[in-house]
């Protein structure tokens, strides 16, 4: 029978870097990223999947890191908001967020950026409705959302024109 444990060793990749760590099995992926790896860009709002601030991708798919145990990500490739900016500076989405005032306090921003990046990887030229649908799982208490939607649409245009 498979072993029952309270602590396990996990190997995983985060933003392209390999890590091997012992973790408590009850550790959420969010706490693992923040407290064990020091990647504090991932924010924790509600800790029960309602606010979206902790959104990351696991093997390319969006996930709430507060609703995922670190041990579930064993062997997976995780991407956090820290993985968005490249050698050439900010990701087009990050630039657009700045340009369009799509953040005020910034607490929800990592979740919005990761979600929007996944959207633009799935649909490169989304409609405003599609942007709103994809972002509907993220709560922002400052902006009223309009500037966030503007920023995502603008980043989509920039990224598509850069490809041409």
């Amino acid at each position, binding site marked *: 029978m498979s072993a029952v444990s309270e602590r396990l060793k996990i190997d995983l990749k985060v933003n392209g870097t390999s890590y091997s760590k012992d973790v408590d099995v009850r550790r959420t992926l969010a706490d693992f990223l923040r407290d064990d790896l020091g990647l504090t860009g991932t924010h924790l709002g509600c800790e*029960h999947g309602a606010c979206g601030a902790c959104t990351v991708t696991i093997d390319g798919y969006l996930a709430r890191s507060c609703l995922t145990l670190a041990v579930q990500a064993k062997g997976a490739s995780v991407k956090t908001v820290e993985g968005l900016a490249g050698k050439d500076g900010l990701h087009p989405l990050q630039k657009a967020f700045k340009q369009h005032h799509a953040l005020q306090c910034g607490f929800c921003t990592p979740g919005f950026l990761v979600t929007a990046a996944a959207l633009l990887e799935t649909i490169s030229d989304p409609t405003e409705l599609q942007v709103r649908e994809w972002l509907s799982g993220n709560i922002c208490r400052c902006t009223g959302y309009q500037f966030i939607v503007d920023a995502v649409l603008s980043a989509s245009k920039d990224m598509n024109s850069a490809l041409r």
Partner: protein
Amino acid sequence: MKPPPFSYAAPETIDECVALLSQYSDEAKILAGGQSLMPLLNLRMVRPTVIVDIGRIGGLAHWKKDGNIVRIGALVRQRALETDKTLADAVPLLAHAVALIGHPATRSRGTIVGSMCHADPAAELPVCAVLLEAEFLLRSSKGKRTVKANDFFEDALSTTVRGDEIVECVQFQVVPSGVGYAFDEIARRHGDFALVSVGASILGNEAKVAIGGVGARPLAFRYADFAPDEIDRSRFTAFGQHVAKRLEPNTDLHATGDYRRAIAATLIERTLLAAYERAKRS
């Protein structure tokens, strides 16, 4: 909050899994996508001794068509209904419902079977299971059994699955030709649990609806001699009102019982019309 302390096992085969379940039974909780269990853990509403993570059991991550049966394994994510067109075509009602379930970030982890096992009275997939008369294949170390959707959903957040059993897959009959399906709901915000949700099907003279959010479990109604006439919309309206009169939904913070009944009548009319249009086209 954070999850309370527990022990954890990640079996790699279904046999290992049922051995663990027979050892721990009601002390164990099965973790698949975690979109229902993890909030309950973080809110300290459940305190299992052992979490059995079925995420490493490869055999559960597939669906297949076997003769006139479509079987969806316990690890098939809800997103598959959006990304896998052959699956969407095999279970069109589920594909109509999926966009209303949560958000991309929850659908990419949450599983189809997991949502059914959680049996939230306001959730969409249990409504689909009842309408389609789905069957659940349960397995324990003692053997297998099949449970019909009607006998599966017991009460709010409660099914007839025993502590030593796992739902290996849910199965549906292949879509009959000429059928039309539709699903719709009213929620305060997109992605929230519905105040009321309705799934509908029309096949020949028979109309069926299943309704969520109006009781502890989804309720189904059948109209055997519906014979809808396009010109006479009033039959759709009348059926909606006829069914709504028989519902006894709760009043709570989100809506009164009367409002839920009114929504149900409207949604039944709306989904039957949509199902009828699709049945005509197919």
